[in-house]
């Protein structure tokens, strides 16, 4: 019986974490706008730089940015861009307004903006996670720039982890 239990536990655990991409998140936000920045791990960055910094100059032209948006970024809509906005306890579909790419040493960076004007003076929270858990996101207090009062907590989801930013 012990072996059967061990077996079940092992295969249950096997359904857990399996990220291939590691993203460090940093934020800048005020009442009307949210700016999200992602910095990728070096291995993933190398691959993204190969594909989208086509002229290898470390700077992303509008054409290169557009290619990234079309081929990669737009597909992230199905994952809510790993940014789960709730307004008055209701999920709100995320609509990034601007997209920027940059290179920082060997890392690939992405920045996108979200318009929060329609939700001014409403209770908001933003979750950061990837439900498929192929990407692991990390967010520290030091990476949040805002004058709004907030709490940041780690979230225990069903089989993956994440961070929840709640505005008071």
């Amino acid at each position, binding site marked *: 019986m012990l072996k059967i239990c061990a*077996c079940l536990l*092992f*295969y249950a655990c096997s359904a857990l*974490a399996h990220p291939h991409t590691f993203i460090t998140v940093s934020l800048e936000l005020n009442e009307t706008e949210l700016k999200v920045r992602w910095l990728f791990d070096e291995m993933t960055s*190398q691959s993204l730089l190969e594909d989208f910094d086509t002229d290898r100059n470390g700077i992303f032209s509008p054409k290169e940015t557009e290619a990234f948006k079309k081929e*990669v970024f737009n597909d992230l809509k199905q994952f809510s861009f790993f940014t789960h906005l709730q307004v008055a306890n209701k999920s709100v579909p995320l609509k990034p307004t601007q997209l920027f790419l940059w290179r920082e040493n060997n890392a690939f960076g992405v920045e996108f903006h979200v318009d929060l004007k329609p939700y001014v003076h409403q209770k908001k929270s933003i979750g950061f996670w990837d439900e498929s858990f192929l*990407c*692991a996101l990390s967010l520290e207090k030091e990476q949040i720039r805002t004058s709004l009062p907030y709490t940041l907590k*780690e979230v225990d989801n069903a089989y993956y982890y994440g961070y929840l930013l709640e505005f008071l």
Partner: protein
Amino acid sequence: MMPSTLANTFAQANHYFNTAIAEHFHAIDSGRVQPALFIIALAFGYGVVHALGPGHGKALVAGYLLANPSKRSHVFQIGFLIALVHTLSALVVTLCAAYLMNISANRLFRDVNPPLFQISGGLIVLLGCWLVYNVFKERRIVNEPVVGTQTSRFGVVMLAGVVPCPGVITLSFFAITLGHMGIGMIAALFMSLGMGLTISLAGLLAQSVQASKAIATQPKWFWAIRFFGAVCVVLLGLWFLTHPIPQRAF
């Protein structure tokens, strides 16, 4: 302990190996042998931790071994061969992308993975049906030792391994872009050894359930567990078929 806490621990371990390997690849340029040796050792550890995650054929191996009682040596043979095929298919994708198509391996992987995943799912369903048929056929001789055929073992190896390992793709493509293809290939092979160890241990666990006294001495239970394993293989294949991998970004 919450599942997500475990998930976090696995993710941190994966992140550690990922970062450490990347750092040591840069150190190779100093001309010393030490970083290359570290990369190989880290790749083995990365393989062990990486294969703990979902995929990599563990569930298929477990279902197959429950349905088809095998010798311990065969369990290790299956585990290590799956990891090797899983790695070789990843290396084929990486080398084709880098040298024939001039694109990143992850970009090619995004294109080939969804159809491969579904083809593999369809074949797993067929394998599962074959196992169900065999187990049902052998229901009257349940307490006699049964050993899987060589053909079926290699069938499992191919089905479980044919979908390329994204971890190996990322590692080997990274090595190529830094100009260290040789070390990258060796690291990928050591990563496959690490994955093979994890897959084999998962198989051993299933095999030990099948061989435990409580089951081996009860013909009805023995048959029921075999049947359960075969049905699990069918369900796994159906799940692959009906849940195609979404087009992933990275």
